[in-house]
């Protein structure tokens, strides 16, 4: 075998959007049509767009019927727009005034897309990709491109810049295959569809070669390998088989009482983004909630949430948990999570800016509302409250003083409240290095930000994927220090970043001395099984 050729094989690393494995022909799909077209009289142009709109409507209706369920609801909005005179009239007026059909259509859609993109609400922003989908579908017809579903070899690894939901649905996935996107996001509609169908998907791959014969897509490790050698294929197939077996076996572990390692019980908790996440079938097997994020409350209504919205959410989660512990994190806005009317605009470096607890302490008007609701909810369960992005003990004490004030004011109003246990996220290296100075009831290591700050790597930047390894010895050193201090001082320490759900990281985390991990509900089975394997002396 030619060694040089082996070394020359290319591998790309992205982010996981849907776990699974695909080995098949490599197909680049170029979505955005750019062909020139012959422009006719305004009359011709009107006929052309009318025909293109009709065709688009029929195609989408067919897709929606075939797909059903959630997918058809996603497409329903596009169908409604094609039948919206108020939306179409200005386009026809522009064509009447001499604008070519494709230009009139695309500028009307661009305007809508920009409008949705500027919305403060993530849900509305996500609609913009549906509009881009509709824009491109009609443009393909107008610009004479083939608008038929592309004939793709079965089981192909499809590679595109990004892929709109309707194109995903046009592809025949019945014999497998996978999706590799140069951009894209794990939270997109397409990612949701891919996960629902069990199609492996990797996003944010950056630049990928235009041509290749075959591809290996590993949704678990977020890699794409092109024109692999036989050795690479062997390794890949072994990983695929191991994954298949572990998936099947993992579910059997869920019902077992507790994971243990080295004779010690490992507590497995879950991370939730919003109350609805508790509906996941595996959530009930968790030992509690290790991280409830509260930023979702900031996106649900115009303006900031009132005390009652906070309270209802916290109360629902505490009731679900019963006696199990629930750790709620106060607002972690700022950084990559800007919120209108709350976070600061125009910071040169928002990740190192006024975010997390820093922002909450700067805005006691907003923070107090959350603390009031937490104090009330604390009456109904085992609530712990944690503050994000803490750098010095003074910040924790300032938050504690504010919280204690809130509690005494509520008591004066005759409202039953209690001050919950207070802890901090350990994600700023300065806090990890001086952990013994903090008078916290518990620590929760936010390994995503910790790794990002320790390695000085933006973890969404694909070009830094190798450098931003959370298993960097410096990151493990800080995790180890925190865990060891917790052991000595009798303070519980958990870890709630992505590392906790990554089977490759778990041995290192347990060796650091961690005995509490908090993961997404969907990772619970796998993590439990991994720990069980390790406790039997196996390897993950």
């Amino acid at each position, binding site marked *: 075998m030619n060694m040089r050729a082996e070394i020359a094989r290319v591998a790309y690393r992205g982010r996981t959007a849907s776990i699974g494995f695909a080995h098949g022909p490599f197909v680049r799909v170029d979505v955005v049509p750019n062909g020139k077209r012959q422009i006719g009289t305004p009359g011709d142009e009107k006929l052309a767009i009318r025909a293109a709109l009709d065709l688009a409507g029929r195609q989408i209706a067919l897709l929606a019927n075939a797909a059903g369920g959630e997918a058809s*609801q996603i497409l*329903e*909005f596009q169908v*409604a*727009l094609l039948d*919206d*005179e*108020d*939306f179409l009239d200005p386009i026809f007026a522009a064509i009447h005034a001499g604008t070519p059909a494709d230009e009139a259509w695309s500028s009307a859609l661009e305007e*809508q897309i920009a*409008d949705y993109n500027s*919305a403060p609400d993530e*849900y*509305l922003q996500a*609609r913009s990709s*549906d509009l881009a989908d509709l824009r491109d579908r009609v443009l393909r017809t107008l610009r004479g491109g083939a608008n038929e579903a592309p004939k793709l070899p079965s089981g192909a690894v499809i590679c595109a810049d990004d892929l709109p939901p309707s194109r995903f649905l046009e592809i025949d996935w019945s014999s497998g295959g996978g999706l590799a996107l140069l951009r894209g996001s794990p939270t997109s509609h397409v990612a949701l569809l891919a996960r629902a169908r069990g199609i492996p998907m990797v996003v944010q791959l950056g630049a990928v070669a235009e041509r290749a014969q075959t591809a290996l897509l590993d949704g678990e490790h977020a890699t794409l390998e092109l024109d692999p050698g036989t050795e690479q294929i062997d390794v890949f197939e072994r990983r695929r088989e191991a994954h298949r077996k572990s998936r099947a076996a993992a579910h059997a572990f869920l019902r077992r009482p507790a994971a243990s390692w080295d004779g010690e019980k490992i507590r497995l908790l879950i991370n939730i983004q919003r109350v609805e996440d508790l509906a996941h079938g595996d959530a009930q097997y968790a030992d509690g909630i290790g991280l409830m994020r509260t930023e979702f409350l900031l996106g*649900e*209504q*115009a303006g900031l949430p009132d005390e009652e919205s906070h309270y209802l959410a916290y109360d629902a989660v505490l009731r679900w948990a019963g006696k199990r512990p629930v750790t709620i994190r106060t607002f972690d806005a700022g950084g990559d999570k800007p919120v209108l009317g709350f976070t600061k605009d125009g910071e040169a470096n928002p990740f190192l800016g006024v975010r997390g607890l820093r922002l909450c302490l700067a805005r006691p008007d907003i923070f107090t509302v959350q603390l009031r609701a937490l104090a009330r909810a604390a009456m109904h369960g085992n609530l712990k409250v944690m503050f994000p992005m803490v750098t010095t003990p003074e910040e924790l004490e300032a938050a504690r003083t504010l919280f204690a004030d809130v509690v005494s004011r509520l008591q004066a109003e005759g409202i039953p409240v209690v001050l919950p246990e207070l802890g901090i996220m350990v994600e700023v290296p300065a806090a990890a290095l001086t952990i013994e100075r903090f008078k916290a009831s518990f620590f929760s290591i936010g390994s995503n930000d910790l790794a990002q700050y320790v390695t000085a790597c933006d973890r969404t930047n694909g070009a830094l994927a190798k450098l931003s390894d959370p298993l960097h010895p410096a990151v493990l050193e800080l995790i180890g220090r925190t865990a060891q201090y917790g052991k000595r001082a009798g303070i519980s320490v958990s870890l709630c970043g992505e590392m906790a759900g990554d089977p490759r990281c778990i041995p290192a985390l347990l060796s650091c001395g961690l005995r509490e991990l908090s993961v997404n509900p969907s990772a619970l089975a796998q993590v439990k099984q991994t720990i069980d394997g390790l406790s039997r002396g196996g390897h993950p």
Partner: protein
Amino acid sequence: MLETSKANGQIFTGSVRLIHAVGMHARPAVRLTKLAKKFNAHILIRASNAAEWTNAKSVAKVMALRAVRDSIIEIQASGEDAEAAVAALVDLVATDFPDSGP
């Protein structure tokens, strides 16, 4: 919640609180415009006392209301089946856009 009133001869109005958790987003907007289109009446909608009324049969316009949870949705209609249209639309919003709509 339903305050259908006959004002100004041919114009019927009603108002209702939007209880949908995420506000007037794609699915509710599609349901509402679909139902509105079943009536011949000219139907207008606005949210929380906005100055402008907008066409209740246009999904783009209804989405552009950006109506959030708990906003008050007002409907007004004129024409032959205006009264029934207002009642049906108010009911749709009040019952939180059920799957098996009329």
